[in-house]
Each structure stands twice: as C-alpha cells, then as structure tokens.
C-alpha cells in the first residue's frame, strides 16, 4: 500500500535563514533551532506523525545542514518515521527545492510543509479540503498575529523599515473557500491591483489582511510537476508558484459551478519586487487539459485554488523572524506546552528532573528548564526558556528570554527579552536587553547591550 490517501509529504526545512541571524549558524541550521528546547523541525515532524504521515521527504538547503538534520532525524525518529533527507544547494528558492525532489513524487497529491511551522492544525482537514475541491492548490491560512503586534514589529524598526504593512494580502471569495489573490504584504508597495475581469466573474471578493499564509500547501502533483518543469522561472513557492496558479484559474476552467463558487483570477501585473520571474511566466503554454483530474464532467475541469482557514482555536505560527521566534517560544512554554509533550508541573512550568535549582531561586510559570541545567541561588526566571546543561550563577534574572544549550551565565546577569544561543558565555553582571547573541559569543563583564545582534564575526 502506497502512501496513505495518496498524499506525499515534502518538508522544506530550509537551511540558513538570514532573517534569523544571528540565531542560525552553520552548526545550527534553521531546522534545528531549538524552540521550547526541541528543534523546530520536530514540531512539524510530530504533527505529521500525529496525522499518520510517516513517509516524508525533507529538503534541506546546504550539504552540511542536510547532514546535521539527517543525523538528528535518524537519532530522534528512528523507526517511527521514514524520512528521506534531500540536500539542495543553498540560496535557492523554495520552488527550486521542490523541483529538486519532483522526481520522487509519484502519487496524486503533495503536501508541502515548511519546516518552521509550529502548529496543531489537523492536516487531514487540509488534505480533505484539497480533495473535496479537486483543487490544484490548497493553501492553509491562519489568522496572523494581531494588528498590535504588527505595529510593535514595525515600531521597533527591526526588520521592516517601511510603514506597517500586513503580512499577507489574501483575496477570497465569499464562501471563504477559494483563493483569488495572494500577495505578501512586503511585496505590495502601494496598491493592490486586481483585474476587473476577476471581479466580474466572482461578483464579490473579500480582501483579508488578517490572514496569513502558513506555508503549508497541498498541490496536485501532476500540475505541480507540469508547472515547475515548464516554467523554470518560478523560484519561490510563495512569491511565484502560488500566484501563478492562482492567476491560472481564470485561464482554464472557471466554469461556474454554483452561485458563489465561480473563480477566476487576475492580478497586479506590475510588481516590482517579483518582476524578474514575471517575464518568463508570460510565455508559459496553457496547461494541457488532459492532465486535469476527473475529466468526465465538464464541471470538473475547473482549476481551482482553495484555502483552508485554520479554525480559531488552532495555533499556527512560523519561525521566520526573531520576533516570531521569541513569540513562539513563549507560546510553546505557555499555552502550547502540549505540543512539546513535556509534563507540566504544578507551577505551570516545565523543569526537567535533572535540572538543579539553587535555594531561593524562583522559576515562574510558563518557563522551561532543560535537563542538566544548574541554576544558582536567588535567581529568577520568568517567562523564559533555559536550555540543556546551562550553568547559571546566582542572582541572575532571566525575563522573557530564550537561553539555549550549554550557556554559561555568571552571577548577577540580567537578561531581558533576549535570545542567547548555545555556548554563549555571559560574564558577571552583563546586562542584555532585547538582544540576540550568536553562538559561542562571549559577553564581557559589566557590559550593557540594548537591542543588538551580537555574534562572532571572525568565525563566519
């Protein structure tokens, strides 16, 4: 019996992420970045495992990273999952990565999952929605972090110098089932241009700014292959492939099946950001109809792009920026602790039994302390995660922070809203606020840093 329900899974684990600098390094590819003391990839793998999807293809950018990820997977999931790790060269887009494993895809549909998703959505629902609509593409959308957070991001001026913009702009039909438009917020400069022909066909279109593309897609395999082979210009799934498919809806099919279920799409043709892949896509030959499934009835000839909107109660987030990394860590330590599989103590925190905690040290709720870590006396840990085998002296305050493995923190340090990577050494009375400290960095005693990204330059 082949893959279950004729779905194959491709996990795009990525390699190094520039956005996550300096947290990600050669030693720690993005997939292995600890979230709640577990590599972020483990959340995806466990989600897949929980959904009984055990044959996976994990695509990692970079040979080294692939080796590391592969090593970790075999160690952690030996016998539970059947994982093939494929390495692709670094600096290629997600669509290219997908193209690299295209030949391994054989069954009807492909589930493409980004390796940095922390979520508990039922994958079956997405797959079911995909099948139900016989869609070419089904994208999962989740509600994006609230507007206030978005404001906060931009106001900190960390990664978006521009004015506050929504993460994604999503156009849906009134039944909230069909995807009519998708653009990432950063791509859209001023206006969203939508073809009038589209509106004419669909009557109504809702533009959502509160939804976010979760980078979890179901593709029809045949069409995916066709498209990727025909248009080598498609580099990225999100920026090229999905918009292309969404636009293609109007070219083929668009047969009115119901009252509101008509679909057809046009899109802003002059996007400066992604103009470069635009050109090769102009001369793409129309998809041959014979590859479409279920040709018997004319109504089935639609080429539809659908969405699955994660229900309110479900969590879905991606580790794709420093901000989200911190958020997700907090969430994982807090209300999402069930995702990690750790048992929660009475104080609503997770402290590994082998961790040693000194006298008068308090570990607040929604905290995690990994195994083998030692906390000195009179420490205070609030809303933070402390990794494995950390040595933390006395009188240390860790608030709202993530401290990875093998970190040494000497007495009297104050860590606030920061991310401290593995093997970092904080000397006495160092004071960090909103900082990211790369692996192996040494912070000198009495130093004070605010909103800085610190990493060892010389090594890289």
């Amino acid at each position, binding site marked *: 019996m082949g893959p279950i329900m004729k779905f194959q899974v491709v996990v795009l684990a990525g390699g190094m992420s520039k956005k996550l600098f300096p947290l990600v390094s050669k030693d720690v590819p993005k997939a292995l970045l600890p979230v709640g003391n577990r590599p972020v990839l483990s959340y995806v793998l466990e989600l897949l495992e929980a959904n*009984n999807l055990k044959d996976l293809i994990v695509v990692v950018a970079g040979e080294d990273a692939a080796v590391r990820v592969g090593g970790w997977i075999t160690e952690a999931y030996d016998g539970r999952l059947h994982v093939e790790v494929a390495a692709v060269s670094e600096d290629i887009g997600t669509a290219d990565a997908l193209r690299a494993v295209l030949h391994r895809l054989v069954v009807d549909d492909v589930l493409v999952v980004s390796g940095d998703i922390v979520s508990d959505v039922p994958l079956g629902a997405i797959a079911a929605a995909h099948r139900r609509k016989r869609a070419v593409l089904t994208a999962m959308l989740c509600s994006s972090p609230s507007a206030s957070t978005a404001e906060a991001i931009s106001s900190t001026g960390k990664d978006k110098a521009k004015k506050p913009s929504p993460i994604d702009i999503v156009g849906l039909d009134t039944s909230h089932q069909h995807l009519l438009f998708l653009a990432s917020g950063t791509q859209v400069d001023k206006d969203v241009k939508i073809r009038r022909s589209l509106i004419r066909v669909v009557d109504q279109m809702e533009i959502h700014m509160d939804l976010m593309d979760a980078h979890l897609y179901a593709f029809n395999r045949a069409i995916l292959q066709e498209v990727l082979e025909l248009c080598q210009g498609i580099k990225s799934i999100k920026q090229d492939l999905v918009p292309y498919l969404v636009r293609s809806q109007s070219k083929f099919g668009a047969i009115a099946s119901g009252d509101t279920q008509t679909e057809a799409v046009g899109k802003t043709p002059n996007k400066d950001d992604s103009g470069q892949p635009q050109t090769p896509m102009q001369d793409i030959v129309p998809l041959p109809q014979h590859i479409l499934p279920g040709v018997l009835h004319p109504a089935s000839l639609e080429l539809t792009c659908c969405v699955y909107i994660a229900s309110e109660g479900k969590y879905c987030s991606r580790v794709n920026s420093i901000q989200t990394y911190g958020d997700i860590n907090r969430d994982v330590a807090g209300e999402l602790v069930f995702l990690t599989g750790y048992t929660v103590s009475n104080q609503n925190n997770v402290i590994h039994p082998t961790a040693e905690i000194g006298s008068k040290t308090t570990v607040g709720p929604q905290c995690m302390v990994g195994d083998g870590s030692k906390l000195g006396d009179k420490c205070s840990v609030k809303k933070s995660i402390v990794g494995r085998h950390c040595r933390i002296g006395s009188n240390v305050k860790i608030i709202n922070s993530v401290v990875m493995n093998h970190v040494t923190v000497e007495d009297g340090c104050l860590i606030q809203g920061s991310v401290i990577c593995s093997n970092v050494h904080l000397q006495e009375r160092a004071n960090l606020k909103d900082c990211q400290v790369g692996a192996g960095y040494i912070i000198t005693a009495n130093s004070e840093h605010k909103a800085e990204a610190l990493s060892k330059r010389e090594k890289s």
Partner: protein
Amino acid sequence: METRRGARMVIDPKVRQVGFVTPGSELGRPAAPEPPGAAAPVPVVANSPSPVIIPLLLIPDTSSLRTTPLPVPSPPSRRVVAAPPADDSMPLGSYNPSDAILGSSQGSSERTGNNDKHGSAPTDSLADMSLSNASTLAIRLEGLNVTNDGISNVLSTSTVRSAVAAAPTSVEHAFQTSSGQGIIGSVPAVSVDMAAAANPQADPRPMPLKDRTSKAERRAIQEAQRAAKAAAKGVGTDIAAIADGNVANEVKSSKPSSQKKGLSEKKPAVFSDKKPVVSSDKKPVVSSDKKSAEKASEKDKRKDIPAPRMQFDDEQRVAKAKRRSLIEQTEAKNRVELFRHLPQFLHGTQLPSLESKFFHEDPLHPHPSVFQVGLQYLTREIVGGNARCIAMLMAFRDMINDYSTPMEKTLVRDLTAKINSHVSFLITCRPISISMGNAIKFLKTRIASLPVTVSEFEAKHSLILEIDRFIQEKIVFADNEIVKHAVTKIRDGDVLLTHGSSCVVEMILVRAFELGKKFQVVVIDSRPRLEGKGLLRRLLGKGLHCTYTHINAASYAMQGVTRVFLGAASVLSNGTVYSRVGTACVAMVAHALGVPVMICCETYKFHERVQLDSICSNELGDPDALVEVHGRKDVYSLRGWADSKHLHVLNLMYDATPADYVSMIITELGMVPPTSVPVILREYRKVPYVM
C-alpha cells in the same frame, strides 16, 4: 390477522388516496383479469427467452400515452405468488411475460374497481382504457393460445395459477441472479406473507374471495403448484441450482448495503413495523409442510429478505450503526415526529470528524477516491442524481483499479465486501440515491457473475470496462437520447417551465435553443437551495429567454406555459416520480391547468419500489438552511430554534409526484406514460444486467 394485513398491503392505495396517492397511476392499466392469467403459462411452455417477445409489446406502447395496456405494477402480490414454491426450477426466460401479465391483471382488476368507487378516475378515459385494454389483452391471449393452446385452454384458472405460480419462483431466482435488481423486486414480496400470496391466486376470481383463502386452501394450491413444478423440473433444475447458488452469493453480498435495504422496500416500508412479524409468521406455515430440501432453499429465500431499512427512530440500531461508522454523527434534536425514521444528524459535526480521519489508517478506511467522493457528498459539492452516480462509479473504478485480492481470499467475495463497506461509508456521508443504488447493484452483479477462473487482472479490467460502459450507456448516451426525444416536443412559441436544476432538462433546453426553436423558459425555483439560479445563469449565458420566479408563484407562472419539463431522482414502478422537493407541487399545478408534464429521467434511475407518499423514504436536509435566509442577516426570528421544544423544522429533500400528474416520462427508450415504467423495469433492465 396477518392475512388481512397482507391483503391490505396490496390494495392499500385506496385507503391512502386521501393524501399523496396516485390513483391515476392505475388509469392506464388494463382491466382484464382473466386473460393474463391464462396467458401466463405461455412462456412456461414456450420457454422462449423473453427479450424476444417483449419489445414487440413495448415499442408500440411508447408512442401512445395513456391508452396503452401496460401491465400494472403490483410487485408484492405477484412476487408472492412466486414466493412459496421457492425451490422450484423453471427455465429462465419463461418468467417474465407471465409474471408481468399476471401482475397486471391483479392490479388492474382491483384498481379499476377502486377507481370506480372513488370516482377519482375520469370516466371517459377509464372507458377508453378498458376498451383498449380488452383488445390488447385479447390479442395477447390469442398469441398465447397460439403458442400454448393446450394448457391455457384446458386449465381452470386455479390450475393455471398454480402452474404460473410455479414458474415465477424459479425464474425469480434466475432473474435475481441475472439482474441484481430482481432481488429487490422479489424480496419484499417474500416478506409480505402468505396471505398476500393467497391473494393473487384468488384474484382472477370475483373480488370478495381475495383475502379469505384459508390456510387449507392455500396449502392445496401449493400442492398443486408443486405437482406442476415437478413436471417442469426436469429441465429447470440445474439451471435453478446454479441460479440458487448465485443468488445466495449475490444476496449475501448485497445485503449489508443498507442502501439496498432502503431501496428494496416497497409498500412494506409503509408498514415497516409489521414486516418482521409477517415474515416470521410465514415461516411455520411454509416450512412445516415442506420437505427438508425445500427448507434449505427456503432459508435461502429468507436470506433474500432484506433486513428492514434502517429506521432511525430505533435507538439500539442507530447506536450499533454508529459504532461501525467512520464518521462521528450526532443526532439532531427536534426532529419532526413523522420523519424520525430518517437519518438526521447535526449539521457541521460530520465534516470535521471526517476530515480528522483523513490520514488515519483503519481497516474501515475507504479508498482515497471514495473518501473524496464522500466528502463531496457531505459538503454537497456534488449534487444531482447523475453527477453523484458518476462520481461514485468513478471512485469505485479507481478503487477497483487499485485493488488487489488479499491472500486466501477470492476476488468476488472480497471485492463485494469491500464495495459494501465503501457504500456504507458513502451512506454515512449522505444517504445514497436510488440511481446510485441501481448502479451499485449493477456493479455487484457484475462482480458476482465474474467467472472464478478469471485472473485478477482480467477481472479488474472487465469490471472497469463495465463501469465505463454503464456510465456511457446508461447516463451519457441516455441523456443524449432523452434530449433527442424531448426536443421533438418543443415547438416554436412554446413556453417551457422547469423547476430547480436538472441537468437533462438543461441539456434539452440548450439543445432546442441550438436547433433554433423559439421558445421561452420559466425557471421556478425554491428555497433553500435555490438551484434554479445556477440553471438560470447558464441558460442566460447561452442566450435563452428566461423568466425566473419562486414556487410560491407557481400558479401564476403556470398560466401560458405550454409544457413543463422536470427532472427526476427516480421513477418508481407505480409511476410515482421521486424528485427534488417542489416537483410535486409544480406538477400538480400544471396538471390542474392542463399543462402537460414531461419528466425527463434515464431508465437507470427507475426503481421497482412503490412509494405512495414522501414520508417512508426521503432525505432530510439541514433544517438550518430553512431558518437562515441567504443575504438577509436581518431575518433572525428563528435563531436558536433548536432550543425550543415546540418547534420542529422540516427540510425535506424529495417528494413524490403521483403518476396522474405526469403526462409523459421521457426516457432514452422513448416517451412513455408513467404506467409503462414497470415494463421498462422488467424488460430493459435485465438485458444489460444479464448479458
């Protein structure tokens, strides 16, 4: 006690005429009891394959509307005749004609009587009818006599009866095996009971005797039958034996599908509570005085009896069924009392539970394609009889394509079981339609009739071909033919009215338009599904001249309409048209205003069941759909209705249009009056099914 009930079951339409009954369905039926009886033995003797004879009878019929002497559907009674001498064997072909005529005679004799009494039938047409009937019957008789001089003349009615009775039974078997649907016809009849069996026997004689035949009398008749059989046995035995084996097989296979149960319920469904009693009552009578061999076959027979259709007001059964089902189903509250026997689940709970099981590995888990189709049924993404049927068949095709026989199992049995489990999965998604039931039966028959020697690959290949052929012939070509026939009925200047959205009607309208006919279309729509809008838009897209209105305005909209074209989910053997709710209303209005009503229906949707009302078998839609008005958020007076104990919201999906509102049924075989449905069922069904 039981006797009376059984008898009533047969005649019952009289009683039920008050409501939604179809007195008119009897209109066109022959009123000559005797000749058919005499005619019956012909085939027995002649032993000629029926298909040769029948088309001759049928084809002229198709052209004329009401006056055709087509046999009346009174399956229960006629089958019952067949029931008692279960084991007897008779050549296959002989069955049908005799059977048919027999049936017609009974029904007509009783029913014309009824009509007279109630005065429900227009007298002139009645007279007409009887005239033509008489003549045709006479013709038939003649023919029969020619072929069969000795017997029919010599035998008294009762002896003829017995001979006749003997014949059908064996044939019954053969018929069943050959055409899966035969079972359905026969089964409920078996369960009806001995009284009913006695009934037809008495039939040709004056009425009063009917249900008063005593046990002794019946036994005597049986003995006579047996004697008659013994003579005929020589040839027939082996055939019957084979047939029997097959029957058992087939029956087993088809039983679990509750669809079949549902479909196979004819009139008894109305009396469903009585049925078990009846059948149990019958056992001692029959089996006590039968030989052991007969007993065995009697058991076989009993296997034919489908378990009564799942009644959803039976809590135990429902609980049991739930445990087996893949979908979590929550019973809806506030179900309408009269419709409690129909499945009604809380809307919105099924889909998530089904979705969450998408990737689960489970022996119950259906094939991906079937799962997909189930999902689409559940979300109403595939609606419409043909679309659903095609989708299901395509899914089964995929499944068969991927199928490989497990070790130590035979393809025939395992695949049948598999199909059964898939069908029950589909039923949990949405109750299957009659047309789908027929398709499933067809498929199962094909599987059951696969020779043992065929390799798996060949078997799969042939099944896939069969499915393709079914879709092509029974649906695609049939639709084309229907369009061809129907278009001839559209003339310039016509105003055509249709209700809802039927794909065949749409094809007809479009085709007629393409042929350059000048006509107008009135699309009548009804809440809550407003399917007519889709049709309207497509018609407008093609440039047709349309009027759109809701069913409330039917009486007005009907004025000036020259023809009504309607689709159907099924046409039942008494001519009742089972279709999207609202159809009956439209047909009635049309009838009242003298507008001809054409029902467009492929013959694969025909069913032997007889249904007199829309209650016993129907489908309940989501009641919330009625409560909410699309696009009117301000209409909220019924919000939270489920919490009120005093309110029941009923959203019926189908209704039954009595045959007398129907002028004509347009099938791929031609245009026939509703009274001819049983003929088509009987004659055309089996040909492709047997092959």
